[in-house]
């Protein structure tokens, strides 16, 4: 099954991380990505720029609203993602727990809703 690992971190706290620690954290992510790849679980993964670079778009009553900033104001912000292949949710949880973000923020796990599961076959 495919799972999305949504990485949520406190941006403000992370921005104040000393350089040396930030480098250590980046190296941990690199190692984690590598472990995913070596294990054959990695499908995709990217880091997102902070929310100050975010733009939200919404059309209501025929009017397009373009907003600076994220859709929802939350304590932790979406900071990146991994898409992985895992046999089941237990394996996916194992991977989520190894993600460096699990000890600094929250890793949200969402199964991909495969089209075959919601579109009946014709």
């Amino acid at each position, binding site marked *: 099954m495919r799972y999305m690992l949504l990485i949520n971190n406190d941006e403000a706290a992370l921005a104040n991380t000393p350089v040396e620690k930030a480098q*250590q954290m980046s*190296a*941990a992510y*690199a*190692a*984690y*990505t*590598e*472990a*995913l790849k*070596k*294990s054959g679980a990695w499908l995709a993964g990217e880091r997102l720029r902070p929310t100050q670079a975010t733009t939200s778009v919404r059309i209501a009553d025929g009017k397009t609203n373009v907003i600076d900033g994220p859709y929802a104001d939350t304590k932790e912000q979406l900071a990146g993602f991994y898409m992985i292949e895992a046999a089941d*949710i*237990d394996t996916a*949880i*194992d991977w989520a*727990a*190894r993600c*460096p973000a*699990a*000890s600094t923020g929250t890793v949200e796990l969402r199964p991909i809703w495969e089209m075959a599961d919601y579109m009946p076959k014709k």
Partner: protein
Amino acid sequence: MDSRPDIARAAAEAAARESYGKLVAWLAARTRDVAAAEDALADAFAAALERWPRTGVPEKPEAWLLAVARRRRVDAVRRRLTSEAGRDHLKLIAEEAEARMTDEDLPDERLRLMFACAHPAIESGVRAPLILQTILGFDAATIASAFLLSPATMGQRLVRAKSRIRETGIPFRVPERTELGERLDAVLEAIYAAFTEGWSDPAGTETRRRNLATEGIWLGRLVASLLPDEPEALGLLSLMLFAEARRAARRDPAGDYVPLAEQDHALWDHALVDEAEACLRGAATKGVIGRYQLEAAVQSVHAARRLTGRTDWIAIRELYDALFSIAGSPVVAINRAVAIAETEGAVAGLATLYVLGDDKRLNDYQPYWAARAGLLARLGQGPQAVEAYDRAIGLERDPAVRRFLQEKRTALTR
């Protein structure tokens, strides 16, 4: 460390869990319906967890629980009596238990309940969670976090296992001598699983997990006291006590990981080490060796460093050889390879590890990569060591251990 109210709360909570477990076991042993027994006591147990820390533990804790259960559940039970036939005798049994307790203690059926929970007909992965829930009253969400499963999955597995006990007629009895060994293994394995899940949070930052290590030891003591002639029960208790004794030494004041060889043994809990040694000696008098006694013996050799100032790796190597021949798990095999490296050199250790590497299960197994990285580094094979460290770092859950591995890796590229 702990303040006085914390200690009082912990003591009250332990008493509540103890009485709760006894009652669940007593009721379930008579109806085989674990879920109904838990249901009947759920409200009373919650009330005890809430009240006893403030008021103190009542004189007859089991009678208190049953009285509250009866008062609060009388309507619910009445409703169930009409809707669900077959559970009606539960209330009568509860009353019988209450009557008994006016003049004597309730017989302790927890061992029987544990044997039912760790029955071969119960899926092995759910045995430890089931024991934690029925004997100690932990909820599914707490257990799920400790075992790294989703609460919904854990809840389903527990419910399924309990129906299985009832529907397949799993007996609530301590097995006969002839089959006791194998069956006891399953019980001990479940207890050890609970302990190691708790052990994996060395800093004790997650209260749920730290509790699990404590509860594992508590269950170990219970089994050892109920089966005093079983050397492996004593062996497991000894093993857990050795490990627990080192808890404070596993992190430095900055929260960084300290490997066993570098731990300051002054920080070990010497009373626990002494108790562990006594358990191991007690087990040895029975003259039957087993996995847990051997593992405890390895810990005993490590603990001897506090007296001799050195680690006897030849003894450890021999113990792992013995362990490997009776219980050749990947964990044992890796530890044995490390012991070989210490006695015969890194080349021999690494050769042993490479043979293991054929096992695909080790691909995502952190200790394998960490051991491999350490030995490669010792042999001056920098680039390969870095690669192995990267794998180990990427597979590690604990941030402190991850930092430790990262520092080792950095030292290689400097």
